[in-house]
């Protein structure tokens, strides 16, 4: 599929362009096969953005997952397994959010 416009870091310019097909196409670029556990986190990030008008840094993402999905899923390790490398950055990109600030 043709992707909507991206910024120089590969993040959607307009988070309103996001849908599941866009997420799946971006995931292919990241080498990630999206399963239910991935979708759960991506939907959570969409809710985070709707609530806080920002993309979470890792610390906030972990804590939000712990609050919303429970202690088993609210860990860095769980998120690292789903979104290897830099979970906050990769998951925000796949969820159609802007690049998180303060992200190494």
């Amino acid at each position, binding site marked *: 599929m043709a992707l909507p416009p991206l910024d120089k870091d590969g993040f959607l310019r307009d988070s309103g362009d996001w849908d599941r097909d866009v997420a799946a196409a971006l995931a292919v670029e990241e080498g990630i096969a999206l399963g239910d556990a991935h979708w759960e986190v991506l939907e959570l990030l969409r809710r985070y953005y709707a609530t806080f008008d920002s993309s979470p840094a890792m610390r906030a993402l972990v*804590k939000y997952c712990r609050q919303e999905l429970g202690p088993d899923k609210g860990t860095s390790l769980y998120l690292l397994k789903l979104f290897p490398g830099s979970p906050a950055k990769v998951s925000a990109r796949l969820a159609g959010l802007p690049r998180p600030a303060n992200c190494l």
Partner: protein
Amino acid sequence: MKATLLLMNRAPYAGTLARAGLDAALAYAAFDQSVSVLFAGPGVLQLAPAQEPAAIGRKSLRRLIDSMPLYDLEAVYADSEALDRHGLAEDDLPAFVTVLDPAAQRELQDRHEHLLAF
């Protein structure tokens, strides 16, 4: 650990310094640095509810502030006199914000070694 107090003195959308200050606060917290935030002067307007800055292409600073507890940043204070001056009541603020009178603010500043003003 050296404690840092960030003084948020700017109206929310007059420039970009207010946003820069909040980003700095979240960065300190994200990296586990000891940080407190004091909203004073026109900066208390950053705490006002129901900000709708999308029309000017900006993100809501109040909603960014609402995420502070997710960064374990809850040492957040507001100047009582500035709140009065700008017509804000304690009920308008996020629940984790503590209102301080001028004497309590001086004590707060004395507890910190560094002060960064935005």
